[in-house]
């Protein structure tokens, strides 16, 4: 790991100033993804701007039909939050199954979303729950946010401030965990809205994606059996040392059915 300058601003403005004009600045949230990447020399930031001192980024609140989770809310906070559990229980449950206790105590929703790991859980929630990513200067729809493997629509120095989720009638997330890392090998988030069902899949492909066939079937009949006839195309899924595309395709369906069954 190379040396870097460390900054600890206490406001969003100061955080933005801290990255301004720097060679290769990085925001530091929980450090659960960034620090390992730095240890492997895959990231060599010139400046690390810790967001830990920016209190406003930790806020969680309900705002009409929207649930707002601040970028610096840790997975553990989200999992235990009454507001989240009441508004969208699937998010609390999802957060409670990320990694392990240490990871949940440090890792944040903003960091997870910005890192855009194809096997991360939150991206499925963002896409299924029609979320908007709020940054210090704009709003980005979740579906436009995750662009490619580990790539997002964020610009250099752009700070995520909060995620705005649209409250569904019901929703749920089921994942098949990697026994090693606990990341999703196949994770499926389903959300039912008045105007239809959204299904987002993470872990199985190169980035989170929606499944039109499942959405159509479930919009007609929100029941696990509705998925019986729906095909999941293995051709679009990933094969790696942990699972083949074929197995992932199978798991996607099993997880989707379980998510529908457990939706609340």
């Amino acid at each position: 790991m190379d040396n870097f300058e460390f900054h600890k601003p206490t406001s969003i403005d100061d955080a933005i100033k801290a990255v301004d004009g720097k060679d290769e600045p990085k925001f530091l949230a929980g450090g659960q993804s960034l620090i390992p990447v730095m240890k492997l020399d895959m990231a060599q930031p010139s400046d690390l701007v810790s967001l830990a001192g920016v209190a406003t980024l930790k806020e969680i609140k309900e705002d009409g039909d929207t649930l707002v989770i601040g970028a610096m809310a840790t997975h553990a906070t989200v999992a235990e939050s009454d507001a989240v559990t009441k508004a969208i229980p699937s998010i609390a449950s999802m957060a409670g199954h990320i990694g392990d206790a240490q990871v949940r105590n440090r890792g944040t929703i903003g960091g997870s979303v910005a890192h855009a790991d194809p096997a991360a859980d939150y991206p499925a929630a963002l896409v299924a729950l029609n979320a908007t990513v709020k940054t210090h200067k704009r709003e980005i729809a979740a579906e436009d946010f995750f662009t490619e493997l580990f790539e997002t629509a964020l610009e250099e120095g752009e700070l995520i401030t909060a995620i705005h989720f649209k409250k569904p009638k019901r929703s749920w997330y089921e994942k098949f965990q990697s026994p090693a890392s606990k990341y999703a090998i196949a994770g499926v988030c389903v959300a039912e809205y008045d105007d239809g069902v959204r299904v987002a899949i993470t872990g199985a492909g190169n980035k989170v994606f929606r499944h039109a066939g499942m959405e159509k079937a479930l919009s007609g009949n929100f029941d696990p059996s509705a998925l019986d006839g729906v095909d999941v195309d293995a051709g679009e899924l990933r094969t790696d040392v942990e699972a083949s595309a074929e197995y992932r395709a199978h798991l996607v369906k099993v997880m989707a059915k379980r998510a529908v069954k457990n939706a609340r």
Partner: protein
Amino acid sequence: MGKVIGERVLRKEDTRFLTGKGRYTDDLNRPNQAYAYVLRSPMAHAKIASIDTEDAKQADGVLAVLTGKDHADAGFGGLPCGWLIHNKDGSPMHEPPHPSLVADRVRHVGDNVAVVIAETKAQAKAAAQMIMVDYEELPVVPDITAAIADGAPKVWDDTPVGNRCYDWHIGEKDPTDAAFAKAKHVVSIDLVNQRLIPNAMEPRAAIGEYDPSTDDHTLWTTSQNPHLIRLLIGAFTMQIPEHKLRIIAPDVGGGFGSKIYHYAEEVLVLWASKVVGRPVKWTAERSESFITDAHGRDHISHAELAIDDKGKFLGLRVSTKANMGAYLSTFASAVPTYLYGTLLSGVYVIPAIYAEVEAVFTNTTAVDAYRGAGRPEATYLLERLVTKAARELGIDEVELRRRNVIQPDQFPYQTPVALEYDVGEFEKCLDVALEQVDYANFEKRREEAKSRGMLRGIGMSLYVEACGLAPSALAGAIGARAGLYESGTIRVNPTGNVTVFTGTHSHGQGHETTFAQLVADQLGIPVESVEVKHGDTSNTAFGMGSYGSRSLPVGGSALWKAGEKIIAKGRKIAAHILEASVDDVEFVDGEFRVKGTDKKMLFAEVAFSAYVPHNYPLEELEPGLEESAFYDPKNFTFPGGCHVVEVEIDPETGVTKVVDVAVADDVGKVINPMIVDGQIHGGLAQGIGQALLEHAKYDEQGQLLTGSYMTYTMPRAADFPFFKVGNHVTHCTHNPLGSKGCGEVGAIGVPPAVINAVINALEPEGVTDIEMPATPERVWRALNEAKKA
């Protein structure tokens, strides 16, 4: 006071470990210390066309850059293999060179190419990245199948046959073939015992320090056996005479075998410290541990069992291919031979056995002993085969085992594969384990699980293993290049407390407690009055270290012998002071008593007299009270037992959950049941890890695909139910303690029990075989295949 053998004494060492005060090698820093970073091959097989270190030498903070050429020029020897195996035709195995830095060719990812010494670790690492190595790729041999293929590329150009290291056999072929000729049934099996990575919690580390004013060399290293390392550095790699070489293995955070071996970095830091004139420290990064710590297992086997019309075993034929990796690690050659082939009789009467083992080189990390070493592979093969035989013959598997298990009145039992078991009651262990798991009601549990959509299965294994290495003469006769006795010293201090020195090494086993209990019990003093020292060649006479569950049966026996000498001397001292004849002085409950009188002396009083010899038989007896002993075992010890496992499988996902584990182990006399339970728990965790989770996988290019915890699945507490640890012990007949050893039994017995349980669960769906690790995808595929069939 005194009688503490068999007590659950809390571990003395835990105060420092649990409060973060352990002193591991990387915690130690020497004045003016510099740091080493080893540049490793990114390729599995390549010629080093050129290597340019100029930029690295000029980099900030760099003190030296050493390459394979420098290593050769310095005249160092290679890392030796400690066990010579002979081929079937009597010729010796192929032993390739194993330099600490390679000069011309790399043979596995992680092979050592150069070492950079710098002021800081970061500088050393940065400079290493500036070394320009021009690699010319060579064809890669990534696994056993590739190694034995016709026309396979060669890992070593001069292996006489293919990539063969040796071609060994044990038992007798003709009688075994004859047994098969008259068999009613022959059951056969093909299986893979997959490669594992030991993953000690503490990565390897070493500090070398050379003092030119005294010519003393000191090496702090994460070793399970500091004396062995001194011997190997002294006699082979660096030729530093032992009296000028001190090895210290301080607190060591787990080894599981991987820290037995002499590694290149030990040579590199000692050499570098001489070159730069400063102490030099190296600590592995976890990614380096994955590719440079010796791996375990990696066998492919075919086996056949001949059975008569009454369900009695007649003969066993085994053919195994074993992967050595690219180089021969310190004990690699012994693992698939004398620690494996000799165990193939298991707990059964099998009149004729013949086993062939071909060991091959591949472009992978070296493979060596890992928790159980050879015995898990033998047990896995035999217990899978026996369960399969029961299924094919339509005999209950418990019944088939009962018909063939060695009965108590058959001991000592000579197997057809060299070992003579001294004692055991294996069938009783079976009874205890089955009782604990409530075997009788299993089918009800299967039904209940079915109502929840789950497939429940039960599986078992009976095992015996050989540990307590080893009678030196026997070990020598079968190729060991070292003796395998152990040493111990008991130093009674003037006021009666005791410092104990052992040649074994504790890296998680709790010797500081167990050995203290042993000595306290023998001398009738409180456990708190005994301090156990180990791990420093300057304070222990000699010793072969800890592995093969040998510390208590061999090291403990040495201490017991030393204790007997203390008592014998104490009786003479007491006899003099109490004015009695030595024959009339007995030692009971920590007191020297004159038989038939009320005259007595406390142990501490005798100790004091030995150091303040005012009234003392100085004519016949030296003052002081310190005794040493070496103990060379008369035989191996043979722990054994029965492991029963229940699993539930989710047929939708293929996930296997271990829901019950009941074991009955015979580890011989138990000194501290809490520590024994802990050892068994740990072994079970690693054994279940092998059965379900762990797998070191390489791709075609010899790149390790599971080189981090993102993809190499370590077992975790949440993966297990509470273990039901029962026991049924018999006492080892040939050592003074009656103890056999407990460090490896968990990892030896449980893998076949898990896999048998998985197959048992899947059998109603038509599945008859599955390989380790039984991952969810494998289970799912097996179910799909069965559905299609």
